[in-house]
């Protein structure tokens, strides 16, 4: 036990001596969380809509005014014909267009039937679909408004309740997601160089001839990073609450406990990488370049997991941040207790054990 403490102290000295790395480690995740917390949103808004009004009548004008008063669109009426729209689409200056044909209002009033055309730039399908949805909603509402006999004999009136997010904060989903993503990548990278660095610098030999047990060596390597990462997590959490206005609904203690477990899991994976590679370069490329995109995708905050082919859903099961994302969403945003997250917690625990075992096994092989 005393041996271990001595060893951990040595590792602490290592970590704290390099002030620059320390600053980077603390600074980067903090800046990222704040930046992404404010900037990322799944909402589509402020879309520039090119309107070509060939009708120029009361009905078309009324509809255009309705569109203008919605918060989704910025109406641009400068284009006058179809060709101009084509050019603007190619240039990327316009992304969607609404065309009222000549005689729109006339047709609507006399024939009870009129046409409009929506054009969207399909190279951004999300935007395209949303635009069609929004415009359809506005047009349908207008149509009901001007229809006589709107008062139906029976009306079912839906009462909508937005659970957990009454204000409709569009970036709420991204905050736990980015937290999981950043913590996972940073923690893994930190320990991924811990062992391989000593191999590269040749100091590994000294460790190998020392009487320390391999498990102790690995533990000692991880402890300073665990402490640092927890400090980092605390900072991130404070920022989320005070800067990004996230309401922590559940137990803070529980949040810290599961986060500690998650950090340990990531550090263990880093150790596993460190013990199975031969150079810092390889270790870093694996833990950052190799894991960055898969982590982004399989955490599930950006792309819905249930849409993926089953094989990817299976892959996502081995990504720790996927489980952690579920956990912090449940505890932080929904205010649920341990009984709701015990399964996810168990998975993280299992991953930690496996990663540590693999790390230890490879470490031992090098001993012989």
């Amino acid at each position, binding site marked *: 036990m005393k041996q271990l403490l001595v060893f951990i102290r040595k590792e602490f000295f290592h970590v704290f001596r*390099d002030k620059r790395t320390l600053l980077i480690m603390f600074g*980067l995740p903090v800046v990222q969380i704040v930046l992404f917390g404010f900037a990322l949103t799944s909402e589509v808004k402020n879309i520039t809509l090119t309107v070509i009004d060939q009708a120029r009548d009361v009905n078309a004008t009324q509809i255009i005014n309705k569109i203008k008063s919605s918060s989704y669109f910025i109406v641009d009426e400068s284009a006058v014909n179809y060709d101009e729209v084509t050019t603007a689409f190619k240039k990327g200056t316009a992304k969607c267009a609404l065309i009222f044909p000549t005689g729109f209002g006339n047709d609507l009033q006399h024939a009870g039937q009129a046409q409009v055309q929506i054009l969207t730039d399909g*190279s951004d399908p999300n935007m395209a679909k949303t635009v069609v949805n929004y415009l359809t909603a506005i047009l349908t509402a207008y149509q009901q408004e001007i229809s006589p006999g709107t008062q139906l*004999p029976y009306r*079912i009136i839906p009462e*909508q309740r937005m659970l957990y997010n009454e204000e409709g904060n569009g970036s709420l989903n991204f905050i736990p997601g980015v937290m999981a993503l950043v913590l996972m990548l940073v923690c893994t990278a930190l320990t991924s160089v811990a062992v391989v660095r000593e191999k590269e610098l040749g100091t590994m030999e000294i460790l190998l001839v020392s009487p320390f047990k391999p498990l102790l060596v690995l533990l000692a390597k991880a402890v300073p990073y665990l402490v640092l990462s927890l400090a980092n997590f605390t900072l991130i959490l404070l920022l989320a609450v005070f800067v990004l206005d996230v309401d922590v609904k559940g137990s803070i203690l529980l949040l810290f406990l599961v986060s500690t477990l998650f950090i340990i899991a990531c550090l263990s994976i880093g150790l596993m990488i460190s013990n199975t590679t031969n150079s810092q370069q390889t270790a870093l490329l694996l833990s950052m*370049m190799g894991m960055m995109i898969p982590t982004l995708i399989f955490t599930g905050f950006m792309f*819905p997991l249930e849409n993926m082919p089953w094989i990817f859903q299976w892959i996502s099961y081995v990504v720790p941040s996927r489980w952690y994302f579920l956990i912090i969403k449940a505890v932080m945003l929904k205010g649920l207790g341990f009984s709701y997250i015990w399964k996810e917690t168990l998975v993280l625990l299992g991953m930690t054990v496996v990663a540590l075992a693999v790390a230890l096994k490879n470490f031992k092989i090098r001993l012989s």
Partner: protein
Amino acid sequence: MKVLRFILKKEFRQIFRDKTILAMMLVMPTVQLIILPLAMNFDVKNVNVAVVDNDHSTLSQQLINKVGASGYFRIITASPSFHEALGYIEREQADVVLEIPPGFERNLVREGAQHVGVSIDAINGTKAALGGSYLLNVIADYNQHIRLNERGKYVPGKGVNIDITYSNWYNPLAEYRFYVVPAVMVLLLTLIAGFLSALNIVREKEMGTIEQINVTPIKKWQFILGKLIPFWVVGLVVFTLALMVARVVYGIWPVGSFALLYLFAAVYLVAMLGFGLLVSTYTDNQLQAMFVAFFFVMIFMLMSGLFTAVDSMPRWAQGIAALTPVTHFVKVVRMIVLKGSGFADVQKELLYLVVFAIVLNSWAIWNYRKTS
């Protein structure tokens, strides 16, 4: 020039010697491009609904059937109480709870109006908005339906109808692969150029070999160019591989000019490599270099419109987006590959990228010190 040739020879040899790194540079991006777009689908296909029917009447049953048959929803459970239904949302098994109050049918017939409760898990904004609006549409439609039933006939001439036709250009079915494949291509190129070059000089620092270089009469630009060119070539090879994968796996083949596309890729690579080299001149070891590169690449990745629309971000964030080379490159790649935009359409973006390339590389050369 002759000196540069020797430097290049050495750099290429080192790249090809390390098989792990080589594999990482070529295989990893290819594999990621093959599989990842399959996983990147923003579509909200199934909104899971937990139904609480407190009425158990014909009309409530009809409404539930209507919701289930609409194609958007999957009714996962019929719970006896709202409390129990909420449990499904808490465990992420349901997205929406539809609650039909007791006396639904009776009140509807007597008073002509009746409320139903729609509670949406609003943490996931997209799903909440879409799920909510789908459900409202279905209910509105059902209103129409019971009106028809009651009156027996529709009164023509009184209602008006706006017939909406829409077409999605360049991607008629609004499929996500057209959106994400170019994004992943750009992303992979960014990772390779940014990370590998960032690690390279700093590695020589750590190994002490940079000292031996600094004591030779190598010019600074020769050294930087010697580091840049090999990765530039690798980058273009990866880009070519990526184009082939896009064609074979996803059936996406650039509509526009190849020459233009490669011109952009070439300039973009120079810019990103300059970025990596700049990072490595400012850092002391590989861990630091990786962290700094990681920091910027994350910002590039999440704020440059690869997966989320830049237009929807706050003004200041759009400003940051404009200051990252990735924003311009991904925009252009989508334009050329999907829309077939020509040189005139993208010349402004080219100018941006050239400026990035010049600034980043000059900065890197300036900051690389042979004498401290």
